[in-house]
């Protein structure tokens, strides 16, 4: 999936006074991809997007668009339209005028403006609302107007800053597929900032996870989900159990650790680089890969005795909250049929275990 680079961040730093919002950003955005930048608030994801849009100037480093540095280009001279969290539709203009705005600012003639606006209004299925005021539209319709307004200039890249956050859950899902299809059909590069894992993972080709102004991991949703590269990512995704301990042996057969919850083993291939014996290491195991039993499993590997402290049912799956003797919380996610027959009362003693193939060593202990 090697593609041409459209945008590159080269050693980009952004400071606000003494506060460093973004430190040493180095990554590329490929032509035609759907890239999601994800992280909790204050992680620098919006600042990154705003630097790309030219709303903030980088304190250090270079941002290139199609190879050309754009650091000194004012916002209005870049073709990097953005869809805003608040949508920022002009309330004093009607739908058509909103969509025509960018063309008008570029000096496009009236007839041409109307033709192109019409085209995008139809494409976004809002042609019938063209003469309406923004205040008369529903949330989903506004979303479409905002998209049409940004796409009418047919840019190479579209920036989206948490555009779905104001919508209710059902509409959110519908708009996700609208966005994904739009991106596929137009081939325009989408850079989508969000704090929502489900949005990022369901739409993006690649996901960038940021924390405190630093990129923690870049990869496809599957890569990130299966093998979180850092402890932060594992924590942030919240879908893995995390065990920390001392490395006791490293060999062809596997890596062994001594953790608070007992000795553990994982396949040697599941570590990006071989750890040093005696160092501290962290293992992540997806909560769906954890096994549960009333008696200790026969193989005796990676077995942790636990007590049930709670359970939560979400649709077809259930999440069990367990606690080790040392007080560490462990989550196990299972289908209901897998749980039938297990005693799950609060306080019930059980054993969890996981296979050495399912454990992954992450960077940064």
């Amino acid at each position: 999936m090697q593609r041409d680079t459209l945008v590159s961040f080269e050693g980009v730093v952004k400071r606000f006074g003494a506060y460093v919002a973004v430190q040493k950003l180095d990554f590329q955005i490929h032509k035609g991809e759907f890239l999601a930048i994800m992280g909790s608030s204050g992680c620098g994801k919006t600042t990154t997007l705003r630097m790309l849009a030219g709303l903030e100037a980088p304190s250090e480093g270079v941002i290139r668009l199609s190879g050309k540095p754009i650091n000194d280009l004012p916002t209005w001279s870049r073709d990097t339209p953005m869809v805003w969290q608040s949508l920022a539709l002009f309330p004093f203009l009607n739908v058509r005028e909103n969509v025509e705005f960018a063309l008008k600012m570029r000096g496009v003639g009236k007839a041409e403006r109307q033709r192109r606006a019409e085209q995008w209004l139809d494409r976004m299925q809002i042609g019938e609302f063209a003469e309406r005021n923004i205040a008369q539209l529903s949330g989903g319709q506004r979303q479409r107007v905002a998209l049409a307004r940004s796409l009418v200039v047919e840019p190479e890249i579209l920036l989206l800053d948490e555009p779905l956050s104001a919508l209710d859950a059902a509409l959110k899902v519908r708009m996700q597929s609208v966005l994904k299809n739009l991106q596929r059909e137009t081939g325009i590069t989408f850079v989508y900032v969000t704090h929502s894992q489900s949005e990022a993972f369901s739409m993006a080709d690649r996901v960038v996870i940021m924390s405190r102004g630093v990129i923690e991991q870049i990869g496809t949703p599957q890569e990130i989900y299966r093998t979180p590269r850092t402890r932060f990512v594992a924590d942030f995704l919240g879908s893995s159990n995390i065990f920390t301990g001392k490395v006791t042996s490293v060999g062809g057969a596997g890596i062994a650790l001594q953790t608070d919850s007992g000795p553990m083993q994982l396949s040697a291939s599941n570590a990006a680089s071989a750890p040093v014996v005696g160092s501290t290491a962290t293992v992540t195991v997806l909560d769906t890969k954890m096994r549960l039993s009333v008696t200790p499993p026969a193989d005796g590997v990676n077995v942790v005795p636990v007590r049930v402290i709670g359970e939560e049912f979400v649709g077809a799956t259930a999440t069990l909250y367990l606690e080790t003797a040392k007080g560490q919380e462990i989550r196990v996610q299972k289908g209901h049929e897998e749980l039938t027959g297990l005693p799950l009362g609060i306080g019930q003693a059980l054993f969890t275990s996981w296979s050495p193939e399912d454990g992954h060593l992450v960077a940064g202990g």
Partner: protein
Amino acid sequence: MRRHVTLYGLTFSLPLLIWQVLFFVFPLVFLVALSFWTVKNFAMRPDFDTINWVTMFSRKVFWQAYGTTFVLATAAAALTSILAFPCAYAIAFKLSDNARRWAVFLMVIPFFTSYLVRVYSWQIFLSDAGIINVLLGWIGLGPFHMLNTVGATIIGYLTLCFPLAVLLQLFSLVFIDRTLIEAAHNMRCGRLRTVFAVVIPSARVGLVIAALFCFILSFGDFVSPIYLGGGDPTTLSILITDTTKSGQQWPRAAVIALTMVGTLLAVAFLAVKFAYKGRTK
């Protein structure tokens, strides 16, 4: 996003700055300079002489007028605050949203309509043969001499301050968290007690600021003391006009004016400090 100064930014920020420096700051600064000028043969001369300050501050008339003005303005601030509060309270808590909007709408109107004409019209009510005395006469009372009294001056101050006081009080009252009042009731705090124990402390900043504005407006007002109070007792504003009229004594008038500004600054400082006391944590 751009830190440096732009022509665009200056186009919007500079005009007001220039105007207010030229025509607001400079006149006030000039007033300070003027207070050190001297007057010889009805002509002012640039000078640096403290004579005007010494003369004014040693005059009994000045301190009498100062005391009168201070007491009157304090009384007006207290009276207006007390009379405006039930009105602001009722508008805030007893009216529907729609009625409240109308009340605010109506209260704003007098704030921007000629105060002088309004004060002037009070003469129709207060004069010896005016409406109030005629009405009292019908029930066998009076006539009372009301015009050219301190009471009439106070009515003038009320005319000046009441709408603004209601609006400022109202503004702080509508922002009180209603659940605080319900919580007080829930803890067996009665209606009236809740007003004193919860509502007034919650709205303190607004109430103090409202009283401060009443003080400032009354302290500097010259219309009511002249047209309703008949110029007696003399307030500082009357003293200023008298001083300018008598022998070009503008420098002495400047002394009075600056003393007033100093007093207002001190009162404003104390009031704001009191309003925010214990709030800035």
